[in-house]
């Protein structure tokens, strides 16, 4: 196909390029939010936590921009096949990014109540979970940019590790609650923080599944990864 044959869809290509750019901005913003929220939490830096919470409005605004852009492309260009998958994926992962943003805001808000109990946080696997979740988020972004289905599947596989760590946290924190009832409030925040990171990892997994759908046309949600591998 000659380059002139590409002209009929130059407008759509331009719109899709803009959409990809918005999604990468969203991924970068949310990644920063997660890093800053965890730093604030670990260092007990209440001010930094407030900054993260305040910045959530940027995530919300970008979510609306992306949704409007998707609506515009659907209405004006009626995409099909791979283009349609891109739009379906964009709408879904946009919501995942925004939900990750909300969890980051909540994590940041736990900074103040947990600031007086720095050892308690360090004793859990919450920081380790956050590192893995952030790796997953970055991996999903990389898979999206490079249309890398293998990388996407690697991200999906790591979700189980986070789930396992959250379950361990939960048991340990409940046991601790029984032993030290006076620390119940702080421990409750830690359980919620652990759950928030577990959810962030779920959303990163969803984003990676979206990338597989985009590249392969296979919807591998609600499947075991081994079954999903067989269907590829």
């Amino acid at each position: 196909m000659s380059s002139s044959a590409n002209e009929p869809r130059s407008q759509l290509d331009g719109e899709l390029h803009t959409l990809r750019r918005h999604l990468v901005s969203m991924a970068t913003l949310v990644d920063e939010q997660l890093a800053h929220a965890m730093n604030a939490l670990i260092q007990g830096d209440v001010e930094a936590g407030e900054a993260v919470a305040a910045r959530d409005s940027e995530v919300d605004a970008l979510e609306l921009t992306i949704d409007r852009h998707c609506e515009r492309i659907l209405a004006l260009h009626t995409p099909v096949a791979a283009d349609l998958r891109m739009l379906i994926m964009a709408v879904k992962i946009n919501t995942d990014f925004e939900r990750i943003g909300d969890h980051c805001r909540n994590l940041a808000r736990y900074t103040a109540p947990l600031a007086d109990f720095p050892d308690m946080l360090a004793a859990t696997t919450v920081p380790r979970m956050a590192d893995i979740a952030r790796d997953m988020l970055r991996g999903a972004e990389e898979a999206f940019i490079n249309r890398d289905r293998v990388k996407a599947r690697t991200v999906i596989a790591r979700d189980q590790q986070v789930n396992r760590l959250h379950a361990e946290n939960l048991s340990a924190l409940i046991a601790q609650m029984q032993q030290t009832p006076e620390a119940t409030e702080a421990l409750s925040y830690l359980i919620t923080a652990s759950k928030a990171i577990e959810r962030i990892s779920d959303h990163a997994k969803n984003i990676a599944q979206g990338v597989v759908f985009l590249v392969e046309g296979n919807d591998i949600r609600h499947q075991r990864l081994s079954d999903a591998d067989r269907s590829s």
Partner: protein
Amino acid sequence: MASADSSNVGSSTQANTAPSTNSTADAQQADATPTAAGRAGDAASEGEAETKIAVSNLNFWYGDDTHALQDITMDVKANRVTALIGPSGCGKSTLIRCFNRMNELIPNTTLEGRVHVNGQNIYQADPVAVRRHIGMVFQKPNPFPKTIYKNVIWGARINGYTGDEDALVERCLRQAALWDEVKDSLHGSAYNLSGGQQQRLCIARALAVEPDILLMDEPTSALDPVATGKFEDTISELRSEYTIVVVTHSMQQASRVSDETVFLYMGRLIEMGATEQVFTRPQKERTEAYVTGRFG
């Protein structure tokens, strides 16, 4: 999808350019072995739709040089809407005109291969009888310069229809979703109708001779979006009783109205499948490039 027919490749030419195959012998073989009907039976037993039009190794030339259709083999299922899509010059209009021998009206053309309708090789049959079973609607509405009523009844009268003409006109106009708009002006000129109404009148006219197949060659290209919408609704209504083949340049129309989509490119059938599959997960890269507008 490939033909299981064991007879020789049939041939039918329109302008003394007959290939060497013996068409008479072929006709006898075709009559003796109604393979397409057999195939339809097999399909039915598998719970699939019956095959209405079976195309086997179809080749078509304009003059000596332009090989417009190249080795097309495909089945059109009964009571389905099949859309033919592809860029200009890909052969979709040529193909649809092979289904009712319309191409014979063009001089110096050559056809090889077989087109079976209801199990019969139509190129071994009386062309007038063939066309009686296959109605056609063209790009531009072409009503006769007569009343709406006479437009509908004309073909039926020529075919010797002796039943209740009023009832036939009403039934056909209702089927074409035009009755409510014209019931009070049946004896007015068809030329007073809008383009969209005229196109639906052409459908009603085609239905009056009781065909079981309707061919439509870019039927809405001259219509505005509202008329196009009504026309597409009519196609959906007719699907249960007729087998419909529609050539369209509009990808959205193909995706809206058809059950099966056939993608042709440079005279070859590139891909045929369920419309949903062709427009969501096409199997061939060239199909994907076409339906997403990367070429054509």
